[in-house]
C-alpha cells in the first residue's frame, strides 16, 4: 500500500530533495508550503490563525509527517521577523503532531531541527542527547530548541511520537547561494581561487542535502524516535572546504590548479568549532554520508548549468534506500 507522508516546507531547499527521496521509496508526498510555491497544500504556517486541526481534517490520515518549514533569519533575535518565525518553528510541530494523533491515532512526526540547538559544547564530537544545554546565541537555534522541548513534553504525556533530525551545515544542488560553499564554487568556476575570511581554521561540518533527506525519510518511515545528528563524513576547517571546492571544479573539467587564499577583508564572524557524532544515525538509520568532494562536484555542476532550484534534485545521486 502506498504510504502518504505530509511534508511541511516541501518546496524549500531540503524539501525538494526530501520529496524525491520519499517518492523513490514509493511514498505519496503531500506538501505544505507558502502560497504560489507549487505545493499540494498552500498554507502559511506562521499565520496567527493557522489551525493544526483544520490541516489534519483537510489532509486526512497519513503514515508520517516531516516538519521542515522554517525561515532562516540572520538578523536580530528579537525583532518582528524573529517573532513571526518563532511561531512557525516552535509551536507548529507539536500542534501538528497532537492534531494528527488525536484525530487519526498514532502518526509519527520527524522534526527537522538544527545543530544550532547545541551551542558551544567544545569541539566535540557532540552526541545527539535529547537535552542540549544552551543553544547557539541566536533566535533560530532557540526556536528550534523550544520546538524540541515542547515535542518531548507532549510525547511524555502520551500525545504523540517523534524524532528530531539535526542537520549540520546543509549544502548541495539547490542551496541558497549566499553562504560559503556556493560562493567558493562560483569563484572557482569563474577561474579564480576562493578567498577565505579570517584564519581559515574555523572547524565546520557540511552535510549534503540528499543525505539530510535520507535521514528524514528513513526516520519517518522507520518511525525512529529520539535525536539524530545528520552530519557529513567528518568535520573540516573552512580552508580545507575551500580547497575541496577547487578540486570539485577541477573534477568537472573546469579551471585547474586553483588555490584558496586567506583574506582579512572582512572581520572574522563569531564562530563555534563543532563536530558531530553520527554513530546513532548510522546504527538506527543505516546512514552513510557522501564524501564531501562528491557532493561539492554535484553542486558545482548545478551552479555551472544555470542553478535552477526547481531542478536541484536531478543533480544528486539516485537516492539510496530506494526499492
Amino acid at each position, binding site marked *: 500500500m502506498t504510504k502518504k507522508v505530509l511534508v511541511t516546507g516541501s518546496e524549500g531547499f531540503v524539501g525538494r530533495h526530501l520529496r524525491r527521496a520519499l517518492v523513490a521509496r514509493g511514498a505519496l508526498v503531500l506538501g505544505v508550503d507558502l502560497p504560489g510555491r507549487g505545493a499540494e497544500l498552500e498554507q502559511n504556517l506562521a499565520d496567527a490563525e493557522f489551525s493544526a486541526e483544520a490541516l489534519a481534517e483537510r489532509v486526512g490520515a497519513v503514515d508520517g509527517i516531516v516538519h521542515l518549514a522554517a525561515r532562516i533569519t540572520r538578523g536580530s533575535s528579537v525583532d518582528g521577523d524573529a*517573532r513571526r518565525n518563532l511561531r512557525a518553528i516552535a509551536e507548529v510541530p507539536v500542534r501538528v503532531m497532537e492534531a494528527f494523533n488525536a484525530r487519526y491515532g498514532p502518526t509519527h512526526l520527524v522534526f527537522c531541527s538544527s545543530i544550532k540547538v547545541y551551542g558551544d559544547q567544545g569541539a566535540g564530537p557532540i552526541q545527539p542527547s535529547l537535552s542540549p544545554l544552551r543553544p547557539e*546565541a541566536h533566535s533560530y537555534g532557540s526556536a528550534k530548541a523550544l520546538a524540541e522541548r515542547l515535542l518531548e513534553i507532549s510525547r511524555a504525556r502520551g500525545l504523540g511520537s517523534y524524532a528530531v533530525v539535526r542537520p549540520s551545515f546543509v549544502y548541495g544542488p539547490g542551496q541558497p547561494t549566499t553562504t560559503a560553499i556556493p560562493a567558493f564554487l562560483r569563484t572557482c568556476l569563474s577561474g579564480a581561487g576562493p578567498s577565505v575570511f579570517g584564519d581559515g581554521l574555523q572547524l565546520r561540518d557540511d552535510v549534503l542535502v540528499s543525505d539530510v533527506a535520507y535521514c528524514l525519510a528513513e526516520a519517518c518511515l522507520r518511525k525512529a524516535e529520539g535525536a539524530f545528528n545528520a552530519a557529513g563524513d567528518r568535520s573540516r576547517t573552512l580552508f580545507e572546504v575551500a580547497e575541496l571546492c577547487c578540486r570539485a571544479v577541477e573534477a568537472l573539467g573546469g579551471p585547474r590548479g586553483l588555490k584558496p587564499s586567506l583574506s582579512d577583508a572582512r572581520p572574522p564572524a563569531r564562530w563555534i568549532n563543532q563536530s558531530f557524532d553520527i554513530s546513532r544515525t548510522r546504527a538506527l538509520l543505516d546512514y552513510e554520508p557522501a564524501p564531501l568532494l562528491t557532493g561539492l562536484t554535484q553542486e558545482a555542476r548545478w551552479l555551472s548549468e544555470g542553478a535552477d532550484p526547481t531542478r536541484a534534485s536531478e543533480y544528486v545521486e539516485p537516492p539510496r534506500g530506494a526499492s
Partner: protein
Amino acid sequence: MKVVVTGATGHMGAYLCQHLANAGWAVVAASRSGQMPRVAFEALPDSSSVRPLVLDLSSENVPEVLGKELGPEVSLVHLAAWHPPATAASTPADRSRLIEVNVQGTLRVLDAVRAGGGARSVVYASTFEVYGVPSGSEPVTEAAPTRPFSDYGATKLAGEDHLFAFTAEEGIPTLSLRMPAIYGPGEHVSRALPNFLRSVARGERPKIYGDGQDLRDQLHAADAALGVECSLASRRSGAYNLADGTPHSVLSLARTALAVAGLGGEPELLPAQKKRFDFHMSIAKARSELGFEPRVPLAEGMAEQLRWLRSLPDHGK
C-alpha cells in the same frame, strides 16, 4: 537611577517596586492594569518614586510603549509572565498562551530595549522548572541539564535562551534568576506552603499527600526583591539560582505552619498522589558572584503570611 519593572503588580513585582523605591530608585511599574503595586500591610508607594505604566505583553505595541521608558542608563526587570493553574497538564490553549506571553512577550520586551536605545542591564525572572527532574541527589547547580517537563518551564527557558542571544547581539548584560515559587503575604496560588497556612488559619491540620519527605525550595518575596537588587548592581549575565538556600521537606513546612499558628498536633498524612520528587538548588553562585544572602527565616516569613491570610475576610479561602 531609573528602573522599569514589568509584572509590577504581581506578588513579587509589588515587593520589588517597594524595595527598589526604598533603596532610592525611580521605579516605572509596568503592568496590564497599570495599577500602583501594593505590598500587604504597607502603604501605597510614594507616587514620586513609583510611576505606573500600562503594558500588555501580548500587544505588538510593547517595543514602542516600553521603548520610550528605556535608555543606556535605565535598568529593566522583566517579571511579567503567565503560569497556568496546574503545572502538570497544560492544555494546547494554555501552551499557546505560554508561548505568546512568556516567549513572544519577552522578545517584545527585548525589542523595546533595542528600539529604545538600550538598557544598563536586564534581569529576568526565570524558574526552577527549567531543570525538570534532577538527575542526582546533590543540590542542583546552574550547570545541570535543562529538561523542563512543563510547558511553563520550556517557555521560561526559551526566554533565557533569547536573553543569551540578545546579549551576544547587543552587548547588554542580561541575567536570569531561576527561582522557586515565591511565598510571603500576597501569595494567591495553590501549592503546599500557602495551602498549609490556609488550613491552619481555619484551625485545621494541614493535609500532606505522601510521607512529606519530598524536598522543596522556598523564597520569600522580600528576598527575591533583594536578589534582583544584587543582580542589577552586578551587571552580570547568565543564569543564577535564587532561593533561601535551605532544603525544606513538605513535612517541615506543614509543621512550621502548625507552629506559627500556635496549634499542636501533627499534619494529616494521606496516600501519595504523585511520585516522590525532590528539588533543591544550590545558591552558591548567587552568594559568591552577586553577594546575595537571604534574610527572611522561613518561620518568620510564614508567620507574616499567616497574619495576612487572617486579615482577609475569608482567610484567603
